[in-house]
């Protein structure tokens, strides 16, 4: 009797069992929570090291959107003469840039998770998902700073000009919109990073792909300029379309808002994240052999 219980205890006494491939759905979220300190340290590292030994430091976070806005104002607003739905150009472009940049940065940075961390991943174990999660978090800080810039420009237009910009109740959706951008960026990013460990071609494709994607999203133009019904339907398949439009609708009062579109984006994000995490989880266990 004693022997039996002892053996049972022995069997359960193992704190770690390393097996060949685990099942796809076996994601240890508790483990990620246990490594939350690492998560916050990675965020800190990203923020500290990015602008170390630069003169402007974190001000670079502002230079980029300002320059891009000016460029868009000249090229798209001035030369091409694309409508901004009657909004001040600066405000219209800046809002698009802030939101789009957050998404594209999340996607770009997380897509190189495996390849650029191969050195560390090759030596110690920790839940690999911590790395892309911290990338998304540190980009949130960057987004925050850029959003403050947006708010300043925004207040300027409300107080000092008679431009017809007014926030409405839908502006309260902002946190949800940001979370959705993060989720989509993270989902696509980890899916990409899992595939790039084997097929490096994808890395070359991604930059190009993201660039094209921006033009397929209402960033530099409002959705209202698309009058072709078919094209409009195709655009509504882009999960970012409704997020962008909802942001502009809530903050600036123009554009289109639909719960349907937002719901679609949310479901899209959820499915993408689940698939992404599954694939990522599968790859992380053996990617050192293929990277």
């Amino acid at each position, binding site marked *: 009797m004693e022997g039996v219980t002892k053996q049972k205890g022995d069997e359960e006494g*193992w704190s770690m*069992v*390393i097996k060949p491939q685990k099942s796809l759905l076996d994601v240890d979220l508790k483990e990620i929570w246990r490594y939350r300190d*690492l998560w916050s340290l990675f965020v800190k*590292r990203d923020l500290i090291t990015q602008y170390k030994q630069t003169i402007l430091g974190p001000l670079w976070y502002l230079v980029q959107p300002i320059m891009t806005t000016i460029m868009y104002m000249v090229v798209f607003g001035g030369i091409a003469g694309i409508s901004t739905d009657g909004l001040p150009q600066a405000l219209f472009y800046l809002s698009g840039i802030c939101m789009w940049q957050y998404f594209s940065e999340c996607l770009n940075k997380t897509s190189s998770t495996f390849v650029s961390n191969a050195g560390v991943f090759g030596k110690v174990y*920790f839940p690999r998902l911590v790395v892309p999660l911290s990338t998304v978090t540190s980009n949130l800080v960057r987004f925050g700073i850029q959003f403050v810039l947006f708010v300043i420009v925004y207040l300027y237009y409300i107080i000092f000009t008679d431009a017809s910009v007014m926030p409405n109740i839908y502006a309260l959706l902002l946190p949800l919109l940001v979370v959705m951008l993060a989720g989509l960026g993270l989902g696509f990013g980890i899916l990409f990073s899992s595939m790039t460990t084997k097929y490096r071609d994808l890395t070359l494709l991604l930059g190009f792909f993201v660039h094209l994607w921006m033009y397929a999203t209402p960033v530099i133009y409002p959705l209202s300029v698309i009058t072709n019904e078919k094209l409009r339907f195709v655009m509504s398949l882009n999960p970012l379309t409704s997020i962008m439009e909802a942001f502009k609708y809530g903050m600036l009062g123009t554009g289109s808002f639909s719960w349907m579109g937002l719901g679609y984006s949310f479901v899209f994000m959820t499915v993408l994240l689940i698939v992404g995490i599954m694939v990522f989880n599968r790859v992380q266990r053996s990617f050192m052999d293929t990277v």
Partner: protein
Amino acid sequence: MSTAIEFNHISKQYRLGFVSAKTLSSDLNRWWQMNVLRKEDPYLKVGETNDRTKKALSDFVWALRDVDFKVEQGDVVGIIGKNGAGKSTLLKLLSRVTTPTTGTIRAKGRIASLLEVGTGFHSELTGRENIYMNGAILGMSKQEINRKLDEIVDFSGCERYIDTPVKRYSSGMMVRLGFAVAAHLDPEILVVDEVLAVGDAEFQKKAIGKMQDVSKGEGRTVLFVSHNMASVKALCSRGVLLENGSVKYMGGIKETVDYYIGEGGSSENQYFEDLSKAPGNDVIRIKSFEILPGKSQANIDIESGIKFRLKFMCYKADAMLDVNMHVKTVDDISVFKMSRMFGEVGKKDSKVGLYTMDFELKPYTINAGKYKAEFVFGENQRYVVYSGFEQYFEVENTQTDMGFNQGVVPGMLRFNNNDVVIQYEG
């Protein structure tokens, strides 16, 4: 005593060669063969052992093959074997960097691996920031590091530079800091791979001391991989000898090391009739290596002198190639190293064909004992074109210059006692 780690029929398969270039096509091919034609995996040739020196028959190789052993709690196990025997793969599996192809590993308690210390150090961050970073990567919480920070800084001996970015550190300081963090992790199982190769003597002593504390005082389990037989013997209580991915011998550390040395040490001269199976690669292939006594006598001893004769094929023309023979003791302490260009010094004039290298050690040079000769072939005095060929040999003791019976005198070198001039001055 209970089992701390259990390796249960572990195998690990790797793909040889250039992985990324061919994967998409070979993946498609495999999918086609397996799922459509219902054949076996065309890339999986089971049963081929991993012998580095032999040409592979398939693109896949078993880095570990059915490794099965247990480690008791509190044991300090030395894992030894030649390059490519599977030592590091075993530790990689244990530290969960990669997964086994088949089999399971079970372990009790936290595992800390020092596969390479200073993992995750970011050169722009200060020493202090990197302690937190590295500690967190190894699985420590913030409070845990806070609690041990002073101890870690003290152990590393880098207090003065703790707020300096580590890019200004010397490599030795990096290792100290990295080891200091890892040593304070308080793991139940510690995995160490050749870390002691770096750092100065004082720090090595400290590190070895810490490892001994961990294993003896605190009853923790340590797995130690090293080529340095002296430190393996000093630190470990048990040994596992790996060869071509399988466990060749297991037992007390002394027996294991003796088995390993004895096995390689059978100083039979090596001849390779079949060049395709000879050690080497596309540039160099070893044909034969002989170690013979200099005088016409049966044994190599202190006063026989030693003749080394290496015959090898060279397949690269018009290159500046050189051959290096490095003689070491079995404890990996360097005795001497010889280098020679294939042709004239500084000229790219190597020829395709057979070369013979001869070198003779005069009588009364190295002391009695076991040695190994390692060969490295280089190009332009910078690049290694081939390395990995080695041969153990033994020099026997003689006492003719002593006049009476005596054991081996201390020292790595051995001169003729008759060369000591002694005169009676009255």
